[in-house]
């Protein structure tokens, strides 16, 4: 479900933004302004916020970008899903993805083992790229996300909260577990007809990880947490 948000043309003349950083008088003025008005992050359109039914989403009246949602799920359920995903991530990295057999020789590799192999075969750049996009970025993103959600859940203030949230958003496009999963499937199909392939524990862990991450993304976007971070002027 999506609803357009709009604002009257004359509205901006009396909208409450008298003071410089931040808008409105103190924390309360800031809250009331931000509960009523939103600027589209893709086209800079100023528009009035409207209330959404549970599960609803608001899109920009000009460029149709997704602006905000009214989530049914609570952040606690996202936290649970992310914790489960973290366990799967550890399993996926600790065990071989699959092993293959040919002429009595058996070969198995973990993801990190594959990264190391590339490094030793004079492909340090590709090795670093794979390491960053499939291990480092997802690991840091996942653990930071869990940390931020726990801090908010237990209502602990933390100076580093804005930095942690920005770290998540910077890493988000570079963590490519789902693309890697497709790469695993393509490799499986390529090798299928010439060798004997035995799926490893990590393959199942990756499948579970994909489902858990998709579920977590469906319940919460890190950007929505900004509203819960206090303002320091």
């Amino acid at each position, binding site marked *: 479900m999506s609803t357009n948000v709009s604002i009257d043309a004359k509205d901006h003349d009396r909208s409450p933004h008298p003071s410089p950083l931040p808008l409105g008088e103190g924390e309360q003025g800031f809250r009331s302004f931000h509960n009523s008005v939103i600027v589209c992050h*893709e086209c800079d359109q100023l528009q009035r916020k409207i209330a959404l039914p549970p599960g609803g989403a608001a899109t920009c009246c000009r460029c149709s970008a997704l602006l905000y949602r009214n989530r049914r799920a609570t952040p606690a359920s996202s936290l649970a899903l992310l914790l489960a995903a973290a366990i799967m991530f550890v399993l996926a990295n600790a065990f071989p993805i699959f092993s293959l057999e*040919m002429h009595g020789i058996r070969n*198995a590799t973990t993801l990190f083992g594959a990264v190391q192999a590339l490094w030793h075969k004079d492909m340090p750049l*590709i090795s670093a790229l794979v390491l960053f996009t499939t291990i480092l970025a997802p690991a840091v993103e996942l653990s930071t996300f869990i940390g931020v959600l726990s801090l908010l859940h237990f209502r602990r203030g933390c100076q580093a909260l*804005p930095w942690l949230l920005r770290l998540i958003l910077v890493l988000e496009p570079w963590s490519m577990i789902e693309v*890697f999963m*497709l790469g695993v499937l393509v490799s499986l199909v390529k090798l299928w007809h010439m060798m004997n392939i035995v799926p490893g524990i990590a393959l199942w862990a990756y499948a579970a990880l994909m489902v858990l991450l998709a579920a977590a993304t469906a319940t919460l976007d890190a950007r929505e947490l900004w509203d819960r*971070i206090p*303002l320091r002027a």
Partner: protein
Amino acid sequence: MSRPHAIPSAAAIGLHTCHACGLVLRVPPQLRQARCPRCHAGVHLRKPDSITRTWALLIAAAILFIPANLLTIMETHSLNSTQRDTILSGVVSLWNGGSWPLAMLVFFASIVVPMVKLISLTFLLLSVQRGSTWRPLERARLYRLLEFIGRWSMLDIYVITLLSALVQLQSFASVSAGPGSIAFGAVVVLTMLAAMTFDPRLIWDALDQGHG
């Protein structure tokens, strides 16, 4: 039916939006380097030097796209032969081997997606530089599509990584990555960075200026 756009953009009435956290701010004109009071990110009206930086990244990606396609991306050594595959020849041999869904998938992720990204970003940059007001909604959707599909080009890099680690069966068969893979990886990273530095707000600025 169409009517002029009477609704202002935030920039048109002097409001800044933090690009990191979305906070709406009023920045005094004398303030040079404003910081967002919520997330401490630098506050800009538009992404700084968006067009210049995107052009630089895009041109670098376009140049590297040539060796990425011409050089060997994967070498397969078997008992009595060595097969050198470029991206395209890899797709062709998949097709000839009968796994045509896979061939289509790899063709799409490794050739179609990077080309679409290079062409579309060039088109978006040119249209923004000319101050075009032509079909802004379609151009905004094109940009959103680019951001979404860019990462899937990494597919081939992962396949090569896995194959070269697993297929090490002494003299029977072994696979290793070729120099083309470095160029290809660079193309994927550079086009992703180019899409990130492009500011989609610029598409709409031409319309605001036309009526303001």
